[in-house]
């Protein structure tokens, strides 16, 4: 049980922040299928910064680790700016742009990782090694039966992400800017008529989505393989998309969706272990979150409502 919760949280939370990225972009009206590419590029940038800075910042591994999270956000935002440019300035089809950005991200990270490793670090490699991410066990809370697992062996990025997620929710639902973002997703012309700069609002939203996806990607890189490598493209970006569609583009519901995915996954692993199924059944377990999504969508699709202006080109 504990491991279901611990593993579930470690997986759900980065997924959640990536999904929030999606909500920002799509909430402002820009379809974002590029999350997969963005999280990969973010992780690349974070990994690169880690590799570059580790010779500069010595003796303070924690600083290095948290700095790399920040750089991952910058990296994700950087690639997202391309998506924004394509969709907003050049009015490209948003789905297509997303697909192409994903392709570009894979090619670009592989190319750059090789090139940089060879020319800067003088060693041929396509990955950047990272440190393990610090974990904490909260003294008293962790003793609570069952729920204590929520505070046991917790990656410190979990509270960080939770705080960021709260801030993002606050911005989206409480501040004028957030209101404008949501309005852009519903009727951009209304925003323009009220004097808002639709292009700018959307641009920023897409950048934010890149930054958040990059952050989530970096956390996955830390928690799963402690490396940046091309293996980062594991399809979690697509899962995040499923999560927010499932959550009807609302942060609170998306949170539940992410928790559901994370726990379906970790419970699946435990289930296979407990049932003593052969390892080949692992493949079947991995289909769990996807099947759960499909089945649940079957029932809830009529209730999910995409932003009204999603995908519309704004002139």
């Amino acid at each position: 049980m504990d491991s279901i919760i611990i593993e579930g949280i470690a997986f759900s939370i980065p997924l959640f922040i990536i999904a929030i990225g999606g909500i920002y972009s799509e909430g402002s009206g820009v379809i974002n299928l590029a999350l997969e590419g963005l999280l990969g590029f973010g992780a690349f940038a974070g990994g690169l910064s880690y590799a570059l800075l580790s010779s500069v910042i010595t003796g303070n591994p924690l600083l290095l680790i948290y700095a790399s999270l920040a750089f991952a956000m910058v990296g994700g935002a950087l690639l997202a700016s391309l998506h924004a440019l394509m969709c907003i300035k050049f009015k490209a089809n948003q789905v297509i742009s997303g697909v192409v950005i994903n392709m570009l991200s894979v090619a670009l990270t592989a190319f750059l990782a090789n090139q940089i490793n060879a020319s800067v670090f003088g060693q041929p490699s396509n990955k950047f090694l990272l440190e393990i991410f610090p974990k904490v066990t909260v003294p008293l809370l962790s003793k609570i039966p069952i729920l204590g697992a929520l505070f046991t062996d917790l990656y410190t990025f979990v509270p960080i992400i939770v705080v960021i997620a709260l801030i993002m929710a606050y911005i989206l639902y409480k501040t004028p800017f957030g209101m404008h973002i949501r309005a852009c997703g519903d009727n951009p012309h209304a925003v323009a008529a009220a004097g808002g700069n639709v292009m700018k609002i959307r641009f920023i939203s897409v950048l934010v989505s890149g930054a958040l996806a990059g952050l989530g990607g970096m956390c996955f890189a830390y928690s799963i393989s402690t490396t940046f490598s091309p293996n980062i493209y594991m399809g979690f970006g697509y899962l995040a998309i499923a999560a927010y569609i499932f959550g009807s583009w609302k942060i609170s519901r998306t949170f539940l969706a992410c928790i559901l995915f994370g726990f379906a996954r970790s419970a699946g692993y435990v289930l296979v272990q407990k049932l003593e199924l052969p390892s080949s059944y692992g493949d079947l377990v991995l289909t769990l979150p996807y099947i759960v999504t499909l089945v649940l969508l079957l029932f809830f699709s009529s209730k999910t409502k995409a932003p009204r202006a999603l995908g519309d080109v704004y002139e």
Partner: protein
Amino acid sequence: AGSTEKASQAAGLNIAIITTPSGVDDGSFNQDNYNGILAFIDEHPEAQVTAIREPSGDVAAALKTAADVVAEYDVLVCTGFQFAGIGELAKENPETKFILVDTYPTDAAGNTVELPNVYAMMFAEQESGFFAGVAAALETKTNKVAVVNGVAYPSNVNYQYGFECGVIYANEKLGTNAKLVELASRAGTDVTGANVGGNYVGSFADEATGKVIGQQLLDQGVDTIFVAAGASGNGVFTAAKESNGKLHVIGCDVDQWDDGQVGNNNIILTSVLKVMSLNVHRALSRIQDGTFEGANVLLKADTDSTGFVKESGRHQLSASTIEKLEEAYKLVQDGTIVPASNFGGFTPEEFKVN
């Protein structure tokens, strides 16, 4: 190849290394082969090498890649099982020499063939696995050890069986008391459908599941894991890194010390080796001096082709462990000890320690 005169012949060997997705800079399997070529070029600076990567890892794509460039080179070094089907291409290009690593060539019908221009090497992974098993048994504090593999293909089953034999050997001969931990849910089914036990991720590229398995083993009290699972192994490494020194791993194929760094510590006890670079270098030298002969060889400790890392600073074995490993190495080398392998006729349970 063919009848065309090669411009580069006079200058020196024109070598290509064709690798599957991870490329020659994977810091691992492919890179070790590449290093063999580089070592050769150090000796023969007039020779040159081109690294070619086939990105999909698909068997047909791998062969097409080789066919696309075969005309350009004197020697093709093909690393990985994906190149088994190269037999036909080799037959059609008798002038070109092929060095295959991890597979023997097959003809169009899929039968293994020996060809005069193909030097194909496979490694006795069970021997490397054996050393890992001995090391693990000697080093474990909790007396619980485990092996994690990718998919139960022969090479991985060999590693697993060898590891298990090593543990049995150490328990019987070296006075250790290590128990093998297997997660029943992770038992592998080999290519004949037989249950081979072990801990299999089910994939070579699933880091997330690798990590879960690492943690499940740690929860069972395991403190030493031999990891032979390709990229899925990174997940196990992560679990070890996050264990605060509770879990150590033994790397495989190449010296994985650098992958094991956590702060100022390292999770790598040692790495067991498939010594590919040396053998690639040897084969190239034979081409250079004209003594090349095609062959399908199984490389073992007797040619120093399997082994473990013992250079200081690259492992954390105690001196006595090293000493005992050296002894075991000699016994493997001279054939006194034959660890079980996938199709070696007996399983680890039937393994006899003489």
